[in-house]
């Protein structure tokens, strides 16, 4: 059944039940104004809702009854015993209809003319009491009979009926309505209803219970306190493992966690509740603006905390309006742009980690970059010169600035320039973030990321200047320990500390100086930043590092607002009591970002560029850097190493000129990386273990330096064996090790099992002067498979670009990407591999690119289908040897052609 109907039934049943108790009073005091108004209101509500839900029969009854009740309420008509019966009968009819809807989902057959004519008669003053000239104020009939009739009406409405037709026939002898046949049709229902009432006293109403929000809020507060107390107890018991409290405490821990979850659940509401108004808004908007807009909503069931829901309701409405007003074009414009006449606004909600992501995308005109640029200049927000330097993404970010609107006209809907900045502020207030992507002419997408709940937050506890603070974990990306003596050190630009994080400068904020906790500014740089932690924090697109002295545990904390006199402090979002009973301030990453200079435009841009790079290429490889012998550091792809060990050189044995070491119960050959290494017996040396199919080889190194993610680009050919060449890794010339050389020197047959010598092919290619690595486009929806294949192919010397679907792959054509070979899965959700191949063959750029199909089941028909669609080769998944050989064969064929 429709959620709306269920809700309606629950609500109405509740109101009816409430009325039941009051109805007894109605007998004694028929002119109880409060009660009459109550019934009136109920009928009114039912009438209104029914019209909306499409329940005409119920609507009619409620409507007519409402008319009559209206007269009673206004004191227009005195309520007599007969009228009381009529009221009760109407209520019973409503109840019967509701019962039927609840049981069958539809209204019962038949109609209610028997009742409605009488109701109409009363409303229009045509019934006996009013027409017979008797004053309306005439005292009600003797209590005895009244009670009888009414009680009957209450409990067995069928019996009450016979009394009614009399009244009616007297008042309207010539009336056409209540002919006997109709009586026949409509009289059975009350019987059914009476039965139903006895058997199932509205099952839906009993399944849910309305609870005042305050009760839940209170409950939540109590649970929060309980969580704190539990944390406190756990902290105490942590030091004392033998304590007899440990076991019961563990149970308490579990129960409290469950209780917390349960109570949180009571506060959860589907996000659809916040969306309910949107279809109407879009409808009105499209009429007002003469546009055709479809609003598609997915993920309405995604639940989130009521408090959060309330906070995002308005921003969401605003954004959807914006999409309709600014985004989607008029039908004429759309046709001109070659798009379907009807624009689409897609609203999507889903869970991701501890967040809810809400996406609002439209296929409209996107953000007009030039227009915004002009506006920025005209508003004096940036100088003309600077504006030229800003990238699209940077310019787009300005829509989140106050006092900015791109709409030419101020409509009733939007364009007043108070919008996106308020939206952003509201979302950031609840610890969320908003990001956007827009392509001019194609539409824009906004991503809103919000926490599931606000009440209990997992936080990292840190120390700075002797004080402890909590940072919501949502904002923490990673932690870095820095030491001024190592490579991981903080550098200064004037007085601004920065840190190189994976070849990017991360702006740093010292919490100590930000909060004015200490006065060690005059200390030497080395001392000031010695042994500090950097908390890499992200707010929206903007990343920065917070320098702190110490990092402790993470803890579930209950956010309590700070005292009113401190509410001007932007850097804190609240405070809380920790497990050990001390009070601690909760840092607000958003506030810190704001206070420390919101230079997030450039950073957002940089990130965006990075992200697009990531989409195009995964060519970065994790490299293990080490030193061995003289010369520059060496690097080897991490994915090739199975283990790192430390060996005692005195344990190394030698047979037949080959160094061996006993390793895990068998002998493992080991090789020093270079001959000039000192291999004194009393040393411990790091050993890089390469293993495959039961065979392993150890490579002795001098020192492991680091693990880096880099794109390997060999710039100088290696002159000696065992080295591919030199590349720049983290700013230093580094030798890229040809692992295969070492492996082959020990196990000559290392590759025989593989059936392919891809590394050697790689070498050969280089010898032939083809220095460009072959690019492979891998299309597979399974991340597992992508992760498995990428390193394999990368290690085999190819550059691999993996995408999760054909649509992404086809997007790449637009980016002028070229590949030497395309490997594609067949079974994929959006578009299968056959269609993909057909599409690829249809493009101009890729029509000659060799394509290899991968599938888990390859029947002859499938293979045939594959070849027809444009695949050149068809191989089974999981057969990596064939895969490698097929790739190299296909490629060499391509070269020949």
């Amino acid at each position, binding site marked *: 059944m429709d959620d709306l109907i269920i809700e309606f039934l629950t609500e109405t049943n509740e109101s009816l039940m409430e009325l039941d108790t009051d109805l007894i009073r109605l007998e004694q005091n028929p002119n109880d104004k409060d009660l009459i108004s109550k019934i009136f209101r109920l009928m009114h509500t039912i009438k209104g809702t029914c019209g909306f839900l499409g329940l005409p029969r119920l609507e009619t009854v409620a409507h007519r009854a409402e008319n009559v009740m209206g007269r009673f309420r206004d004191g227009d008509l005195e309520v007599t015993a007969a009228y009381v019966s009529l009221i009760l009968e109407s209520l019973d009819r409503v109840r019967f209809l509701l019962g039927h809807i609840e049981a069958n989902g539809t209204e019962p057959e038949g109609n209610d003319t028997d009742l409605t004519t009488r109701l109409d008669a009363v409303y229009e003053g045509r019934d006996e009491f009013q027409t017979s000239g008797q004053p309306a104020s005439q005292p009600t009939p003797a209590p005895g009979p009244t009670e009888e009739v009414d009680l009957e009406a209450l409990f067995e409405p069928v019996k009450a009926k016979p009394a009614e037709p009399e009244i009616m026939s007297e008042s309207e002898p010539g009336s056409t309505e209540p002919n006997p046949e109709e009586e026949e049709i409509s009289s059975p229902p009350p019987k059914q209803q009476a039965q139903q009432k006895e058997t199932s006293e509205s099952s839906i109403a009993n399944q849910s219970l309305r609870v005042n929000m305050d009760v839940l809020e209170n409950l939540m507060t109590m649970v929060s306190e309980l969580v704190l107390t539990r944390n406190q107890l756990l902290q105490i018991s942590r030091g004392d493992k033998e304590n007899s409290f440990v076991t019961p405490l563990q149970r308490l821990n579990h129960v409290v966690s469950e209780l917390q979850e349960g109570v949180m659940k009571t506060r959860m509401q589907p996000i659809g509740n916040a969306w309910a108004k949107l279809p109407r808004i879009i409808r009105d908007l499209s009429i007002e603006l003469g546009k055709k807009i479809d609003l598609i909503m997915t993920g309405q069931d995604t639940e989130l905390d009521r408090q959060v829901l309330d906070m995002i309701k308005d921003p969401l409405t605003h954004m959807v309006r914006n999409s309709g007003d600014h985004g989607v074009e008029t039908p004429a414009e759309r046709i001109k742009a070659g798009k379907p006449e009807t624009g689409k606004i897609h609203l999507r909600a889903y869970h991701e980690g501890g967040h809810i992501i809400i996406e609002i995308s439209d296929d409209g005109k996107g953000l007009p970059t030039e227009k915004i640029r002009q506006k920025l200049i005209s508003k004096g927000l940036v100088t003309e010169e600077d504006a030229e330097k800003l990238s699209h993404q940077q310019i787009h970010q300005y829509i989140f600035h106050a006092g900015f609107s791109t709409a030419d006209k101020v409509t009733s809907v939007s364009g007043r320039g108070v919008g996106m900045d308020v939206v952003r502020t509201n979302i950031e207030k609840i610890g969320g973030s908003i990001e956007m992507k827009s392509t001019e002419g194609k539409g824009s997408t906004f991503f809103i990321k919000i926490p599931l709940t606000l009440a209990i937050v997992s936080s990292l506890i840190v120390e700075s200047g002797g004080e402890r603070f909590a940072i919501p974990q949502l904002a923490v990306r990673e932690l870095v320990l820095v030491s001024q003596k190592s490579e991981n050190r903080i550098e200064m630009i004037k007085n601004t500390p920065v840190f190189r994080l994976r070849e990017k400068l991360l702006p740093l904020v010292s919490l100590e100086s930000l*909060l004015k906790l200490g006065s060690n500014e005059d200390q030497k740089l080395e001392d000031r930043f010695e042994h500090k932690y950097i908390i890499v924090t992200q707010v929206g697109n903007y990343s920065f590092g917070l320098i702190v002295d110490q990092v402790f545990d993470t803890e579930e904390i209950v956010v*309590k607002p700070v005292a009113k006199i*401190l509410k001007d*402090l932007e850097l804190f979002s609240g405070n809380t009591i920790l497990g050990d009973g*001390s009070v601690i*301030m909760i840092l607000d990453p958003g506030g810190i970002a704001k206070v420390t200079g919101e230079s997030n435009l450039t950073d957002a841009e940089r990130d965006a560029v990075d992200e697009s790079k990531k989409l195009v290429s995964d060519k970065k490889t994790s490299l293990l850097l080490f030193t061995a012998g003289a010369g520059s550091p060496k690097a080897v792809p991490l994915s090739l190493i199975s283990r790192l060990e430390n060996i005692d050189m005195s344990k190394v044995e030698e047979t037949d000129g080959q160094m061996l070491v006993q390793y895990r119960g068998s002998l493992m050959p080991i090789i020093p990386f270079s001959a000039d290494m000192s291999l004194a017996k009393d040393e411990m040396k790091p050993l890089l273990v390469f293993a495959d199919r039961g065979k392993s080889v150890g490579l002795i190194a001098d020192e492991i330096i680091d693990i880096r993610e880099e794109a390997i680009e060999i710039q100088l050919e290696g002159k000696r064996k065992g080295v591919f060449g030199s590349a720049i890794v983290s700013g230093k010339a580094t030798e890229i090790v040809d692992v295969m050389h070492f492996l082959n020197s020990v196990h000559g047959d290392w590759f025989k099992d593989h059936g392919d010598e891809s590394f050697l092919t790689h070498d050969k290619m280089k010898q032939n002067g083809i220095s460009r690595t072959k690019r492979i486009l891998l299309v597979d929806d399974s991340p597992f498979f992508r992760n498995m294949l990428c390193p394999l192919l990368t290690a085999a010397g190819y550059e691999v670009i993996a995408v999760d679907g054909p649509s992404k792959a086809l997007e790449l054509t637009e980016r002028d990407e070229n590949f030497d070979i395309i490997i594609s899965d067949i079974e994929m959700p959006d578009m299968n591999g056959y269609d993909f191949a057909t599409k690829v063959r249809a493009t101009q750029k890729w029509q000659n690119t060799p394509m290899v199909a991968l599938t888990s089941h390859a029947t002859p028909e499938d293979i045939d289908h594959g070849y027809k669609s444009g695949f050149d080769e068809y191989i089974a998944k999981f057969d990596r040897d064939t895969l490698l050989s097929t790739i190299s064969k296909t490629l060499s064929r391509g070269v020949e052609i």
Partner: protein
Amino acid sequence: MSEHTQNQDQTKPHQPLSEAKTKDFLTVLIEGQMFGIPILQVQDVLGELKVTRIPLAPPQVSGSLNLRGRIVTAIDVRKCLGLPPMDVSDNEKRMSVVVNHDDELYSLIIDNVGDVLPLQNKDFEPNPATLDIIWKSISLGVYRLDGKILVVLDVPKLLLSLQHPN
């Protein structure tokens, strides 16, 4: 936790029946000067508790503390009154009076707590015109006692003065 007394409950029975003739005040001492806090505003009297510093807060706010699961903001009344910090050689522990303001708890750190006194309305006088301007802004008036003058602290005003510095 620490010694604390529910003054409110204890003093209510002492309240004379002839209402409105007297008012009950908790007397506190700061730098030798006696102050009175209307007893109905007082929630707790605390000894010295561990206070967490709140960075960037106004200097009068010495921090926050945990009072039976509620977070209380501690206010140094000495600093509010423009008095120098207490002499460290005075080996006495400082005490604080917890007051409720707008459903939030504040702990007013003072030098010492005295008795609860019922004060005669006839002894009340408005602030002397020449009183220090800071004091005047947070005082409701004064009571003439035997050999002493008691200044009535206007707690809401005191807290408000922190919210909007100067």
